[in-house]
């Protein structure tokens, strides 16, 4: 066995949960082109201004769907998220008329993931 530190993409489908008047996804985002990339603890490249998942609520829709903390969100429902401001990202995730969001995320993993992907 060997260790590889690399990133792979994953598609995650989150069904929003209705809480009162709001539809929530159950995670928090950080980053954006108007933010300070050096403060991002999850990025490998400290100039990366992409949107990262900073927190996942326990038992929330995001966790159920398989989103993990530290994931970088590349696309939301086809919309690019690599070159957006923080507020733009938030808006794209919280559209009131969408009940399901399909995310394309990039995750960094080690050896185990390699074996898993090889096996699956």
């Amino acid at each position, binding site marked *: 066995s060997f260790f590889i530190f690399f990133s792979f993409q994953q598609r995650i489908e989150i069904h929003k949960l209705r809480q009162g008047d709001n539809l929530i996804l159950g995670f928090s985002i950080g980053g954006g082109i108007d933010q300070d990339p050096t*403060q991002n603890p999850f990025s490998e490249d400290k100039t990366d201004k992409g949107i990262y998942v900073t927190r996942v609520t326990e038992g929330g829709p995001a966790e159920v769907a398989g989103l993990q903390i530290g994931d970088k969100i590349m696309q939301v429902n086809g919309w690019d998220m690599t070159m957006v401001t923080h507020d733009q990202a*938030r808006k794209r995730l919280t559209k009131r008329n969408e009940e399901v969001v399909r995310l394309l995320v990039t995750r960094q993993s080690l050896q185990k993931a390699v074996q898993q992907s090889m096996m699956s």
Partner: protein
Amino acid sequence: KIESLKVTVDFLKVPLGLKKPPLKEALAAVPGPGRPKPLGVERHKPRRSDTMDNESQYSGYSYKSGHSRSSRKHRDRRDRHRSKSRDGSRGDKSVTIQAPGEPLLDNESTRGDERDDNWGETTTVVTGTSEHSISHDDITRITKDMEDSAHLDCSRHLGVSLAGALALLAFLTPLAFMLLPQLLWREELEPCGTPCEGLFISVAFKLLILLLGSWALFFRRPKAFFPRVFVFRALLMVLVFLLVVSYWLFYGVRILDSRDRNYQGVVQYAVSLVDALLFVHYLAVVLLELRQLQPQFTLKAVRSADGASRFYNVGHLSIQRAAVWILENYYHDFPVYNPALLNLPKSVLSKKMSGFKVYSLGEENTTNNSTGQSRAVIAAAARRRDNSHNEYYYEEAEHERRVRKRRARLVVAVEEAFTHIKRLQEEDQKNPREIMDPREAAQAIFASMARAMQKYLRTTKQQPYHTMESILQHLEFCITHDMTPKVRREHGERYLTAGPTIQYHKDRWLAKQWTLVSEEPVTNGLKDGVVFVLKRQDFSLVVSTKKIPFFKLSEEFVDPKSHKFVMRLQSETSV
């Protein structure tokens, strides 16, 4: 090495004491104590007040056990050897500095000496030399002291007169240079018109400037007798002497003998001498005044009684001169010494009085028992559960509260008192009986705040320092200068907190007699790490020297255009 000579150095009333006395002479101005003090005895007595003298610890210790005897013998031998190898008086020196007008030795010190001697008679310590024997250099030193003390006054006056004579000679020489040809061979001289007149005027003004400069620099009342300065002054005097002599020499050979006709040359010669004298005066200014101005050392003065400390920056000074400097600053920087404030409250201390009683059973180890006993007592006392710190804390807190309450009352009383007084305006028509001068006004107000003031002073234990007279004077001062009560309160901080010593009445200064104790000769210059002590009867000032570090200052240029900023945002939004 450590021997204390109590020497009294007189404050000089004569302006110039220019002759350079040898080192010992300057210090050994003991005005004939008469009986030769057996210095051998002094060495073995524990000195009560001498904190710097670790000799005292040794001798105190020696009474207890026998094993220190050999170490002390060794130490004595070492000391004697060391003192032989150096000349003059060395070791721990005490120099008593006095304000002018005071008697040479106050009663305290003479009584102290007598007490020391009597006490020393009863010791039973045996050392390498017997109690009453004196080593060889003690004898030489004593005889030298006694000789020198007689000569000291004479030498001072001699120095003054010598310097004065030299100065006069130097002053008159140029004039003589110019006058002698006129007197001796007037007919043969070439006429000298405008250039000579110009030179005459310049000589006149230069001599005037020299006169004024010398008056400003030299003719002052010095505060103390500073042997160290004499090195420079002697140097300058020698320089002036050589200068004048060499000029006379050349004058005699070239001009007088050969009867030079060129009068302008002669006058120019005289002018050059005056210029040289002015430069010597410049040198004097630099050596005597300017060199001490640039700060080189930091002196830390700590009062032993309560730990109050101050830092001072001084230049190159001798230890003695630094001591006087410290004293000058002490009187206006240090809060007044209040022995009443230093002791722990009695309730706290009383518990400590009961100690342990130690009984020795049997006859074994009687000689070594004493140290063992004392150690056991101390250890036991330390282990005992002691709650006195608690009581001290509560006592302190209570006292603090009381002081603050009294202070508030005092402040209010003062404010109210001042509202009763108003300055008389010109237009006001008042009955002459009602008009008061400041003194009466002060007395009038004083009554209303007397009680609050008295209570406050009693609480802060300051009442011995403030007589009613002084308070009234202070009130008068405030009223005369139209101080608002707030200002008066700020100014009256001296009541509310212990102010510097100098503002109290002269009685409170408690004698201006200090004793300087130092391990190095007091005429040495300050060096890094020198420590000396200024002692008085009830406390002492420990002064330590530290060289001001060498600062490495580097330059960095910051382009004003380089100041640019960005927003640093770190938002986290939950979706």
